[in-house]
């Protein structure tokens, strides 16, 4: 790790101000990606603005079907929230499968969504739930937010403060983990709600998280895992690496979609 300056922010305003006062500053939330990257000297921020003490970014609120998850909420908190479980158990299930217990107690939803790792779990939930990414300056709908691998609609210095969504009628998440890293080799989040059926795939797309529209159409016609089987998944846009071929990922998209639907009930 290179030398870096540490700042502890106590409010969103202070965090944004600290971040903007330095050219090479970065926000630090759980640090589960950033710190590891810095240790390998693959990232060298001049300054780190620690968000973990910003109270307004923490916690989960559920009012009726409206859900707000503070960006600083850890995966473990999401996984174990009984309020969230009562309206959207699928997201709790997803959070409980991220990394290992250490990662789940440090990593946050805001950090994961801001990083937009193509194999991270949360982007699929945010996209399938038609969630809104709330920042210090605006609200961004999920369809506009994800722009490719590690690429988002966030402007320089823009800070995610919360993720909000309307709890779906049904939702499910199924993930086939990479045997080495346990990131999603392919993960599929399915949701049926006010905005219809939405199916989002992580871990598989060569351009990051994406909506599987053919599966959405099939499930809109009939919400059943059998219906998924009839859909042809094009391997053309899927990733190839040493762990999986595009054809294998295409297969996993269908298999995980079926399982996610079965879980959603």
């Amino acid at each position, binding site marked *: 790790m290179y030398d870096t300056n540490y700042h502890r922010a106590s409010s969103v305003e202070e965090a944004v101000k600290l971040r903007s006062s330095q050219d090479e500053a970065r926000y630090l939330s759980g640090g589960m990606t950033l710190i590891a990257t810095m240790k390998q*000297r693959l990232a060298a921020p001049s300054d780190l603005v620690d968000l973990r003490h910003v109270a307004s970014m923490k916690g989960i609120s559920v009012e009726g079907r409206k859900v707000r998850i503070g960006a600083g909420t850890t995966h473990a908190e999401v996984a174990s929230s009984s309020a969230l479980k009562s309206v959207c158990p699928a997201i709790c299930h997803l959070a409980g499968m991220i990394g290992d217990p250490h990662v789940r107690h440090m990593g946050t939803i805001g950090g994961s969504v801001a990083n937009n790792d193509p194999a991270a779990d949360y982007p699929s939930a945010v996209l399938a739930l038609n969630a809104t990414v709330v920042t210090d300056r605006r609200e961004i709908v999920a369809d506009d937010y994800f722009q490719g691998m590690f690429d988002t609609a966030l402007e320089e210095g823009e800070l995610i403060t919360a993720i909000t969504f309307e709890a779906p009628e049904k939702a499910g998440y199924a993930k086939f983990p990479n045997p080495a890293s346990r*990131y999603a080799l392919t993960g599929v989040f399915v949701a049926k709600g006010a905005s219809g059926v939405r199916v989002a795939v992580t871990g598989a797309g060569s351009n990051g998280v994406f909506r599987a529209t053919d599966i959405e159409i099939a499930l809109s016609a009939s919400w059943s895992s059998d219906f998924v*089987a009839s859909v042809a998944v094009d391997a053309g846009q899927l990733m190839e690496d*040493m762990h999986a071929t595009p054809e294998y990922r295409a*297969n996993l998209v269908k298999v995980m979609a*079926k399982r996610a639907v079965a879980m959603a009930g």
Partner: protein
Amino acid sequence: MGMEGIGARVARKEDKRFLTGKGRYTDDMVVPGMKYAYFVRSPHAHAKITGINVSAAKAMPGVIDVLDGKQLQADGIGNLICGWMIHSKDGSPMKMGAWRPLAVDTVRYVGDAVAIVVANSVAEARDAAEVVTVDYEELPAVITSVAALEAGAPQIHPEAPGNLIFDWQIGDGAATDKAIAEAAHVTEIEILNNRLSPNPMEPRAALGVYDEAEDHYTCYTTSQNPHVARLVMSAFYNVAPENKLRVIAPDVGGGFGSKIYIYPEEIVCLWASKKTGVPVKWTSDRTEAFLTDAHGRDHVSKVKMAFDKDHRIIGLKVDTIANLGAYMSLFSSAVPTYLYATLLSGQYAIPAIHANVRTVYTNTVPVDAYRGAGRPEATYLLERTMEVAARELGVSPAELRRKNFIRSFPYQTPVIMNYDAGDYEASLSAAMSAADWDGFAARRAEAEGRGKKRGIGMSCYIEACGIAPSQAVGSLGAGVGLWESAEVRVNAVGTIEVLTGSHSHGQGHETTFAQLVADRLGVPLASVNIVHGDTDKVQMGMGTYGSRSGAVGMSAIVKALDKVEMKAKKIAAHLMEADESDIVIENGALKVAGTDKTLPWFQMALAAYTAHNLPAGMEPGLKETAFYDPSNFTFPAGCYIAEVEIDPDTGKTEIIQFVAADDFGNIINPMIVEGQVHGGLAQGIGQALLEEVRYDETSGQLLTASYMDYAMPRADDLPSFKLSHQNTPCPSNPLGIKGCGEAGAIGSPPALINAITDAIGVEITMPATPLKVWQALQAAQPRMAAE
């Protein structure tokens, strides 16, 4: 056996410090004035070094010095060597290329060390290393053993034309060819044994301390055999004479073979300490460990197994190519020869065997012994071949094995080994019964109803441990003897220190060795301390590898205890005015048999040291040393059964049950033995299902350089294991011990692959990842994808 003696499940004495974070590892060592090293390493798999510029690095903050290979060479530090001479079948010696501790003109794998930076902190050393400019002229690289032997392949060492290190054979080729020609059936198979990274929890580290006033060096390092390290660094690398070099291997967090060898870093840290005048510490990070720790396995083999009409094996022919990486590591030549091909008879009476082994250089990390070392390769080859043969012959795998088992001992195989004892049927029966083999068909039918493919597979392994009779290995090319030493020191108050040449890096010697002493002398376990790992404290010893510490290391302790007991009895007889032959040792006291005369152990010890009243002519004190040289290898054997269920939608294998029935001879501490088997099984399952080192075959870049891409087994990848032990005591050592450290890793991979191929009906290579299983199923049944 008592509560603490042989056979007792005593909790490990060393666990308190390990589990509370109080272990003392090399990286925990702090000496006054200590500075930190960072190595500049080659980013290329193969390149000429045309220039090294360190001036900018030397000017960086905190930097003490930057040293390169030319300086090291100028100071007379020698090249790293392989310590086991193998001759090719044409009689020529193996062709060893030069391995300089710091590369001078050529780098041969990604991670090859080029220069060392010494600075006030690791961060400053690393900062400076980043500005060392090394000019490289890239050369084409070759990664796989098969490609390295092809005409026109890049030439890696001038000493080894065509990258061939040796072309060696064992056994009777003519008799084997004749058997194959006359066979009723020949099973032919190609076997790939995947390349593995050892991944001990503690990465390698070295701290070199040069004392100018005494002209003396101390090396703290992560070694499985500190005495051998000292010997080799003195005799071959010219670091310092042995009396001027102390090697300390303190707590070591696992080795699995990878910490047997002497690596460049410890040599360079010692030399750099003298050069810079400060103690120099280096600790590998995990990426460096992936890049530079010696890898294991990497064999490509062709097999022909010949059967007569009654399904008896009449011949076995093996042709193996073994990848030794860019340089010959310390025991690299022995692994694919005498630790591999000598085990090709397995548990079977095979009248004719011939194996040919070619070893080759490639632009990859050196390959050497890794848990099992040659024996997993032999077992995998043989047990996969047996399974395929059983399927081809239409007989059950158990029956084919039973028909060919060796049943009378001693048994001389056609490939050197003389098996002394065993009961292969006992382990096979125990394993099949524990696995409910006969109930498998019903379980498979039930699984099929759930859309799952269920398979069962077995593996009957044998290995050679207790390495090794010195004269025998000497005649086969070993550069060292493979005996072990022990010193038993009885203190004046009766407490005991045992100084052993074995080294404990997870095996639990502090407990099991103490159990032996407690059992023999009736003293409490708490009054026995085991001392190891320091060449200044402990007499010359050979260290720990090849499951040898029990069979060889403890046998040395037995010999020393024999001497202690003899002298103690003499003293007791003298003090109690009895005949020496009437003295017995019971519950911590020396007694005159058949009387009520008794002398507490500590009083006898005190008498030995006060020396006020000893038998005439007896020297004071009570301390005895012994060296034990085994008369034979030991032969642990057993039967493993794996039952798996495969999800055809994803290709994922779930291990439903894993049964291990092992014959380790007598057992000192069943709990520790079970732990060793559990760990070995985890590594074997890792090899079979998850682990594989992958290089880019063009650039030679290591693709699996972190746990993001190298899949280690986790707890949830493993089932609960069903273990049992059969016991045919080893006749060649006083405790009847065979060794248990490697069996799990040796026996498990073929059992798993046999189970998986049973489930999916097609062949597959290790690791059987979900991707590969799914692809195999697709190829076999193109239309059965996730419908």
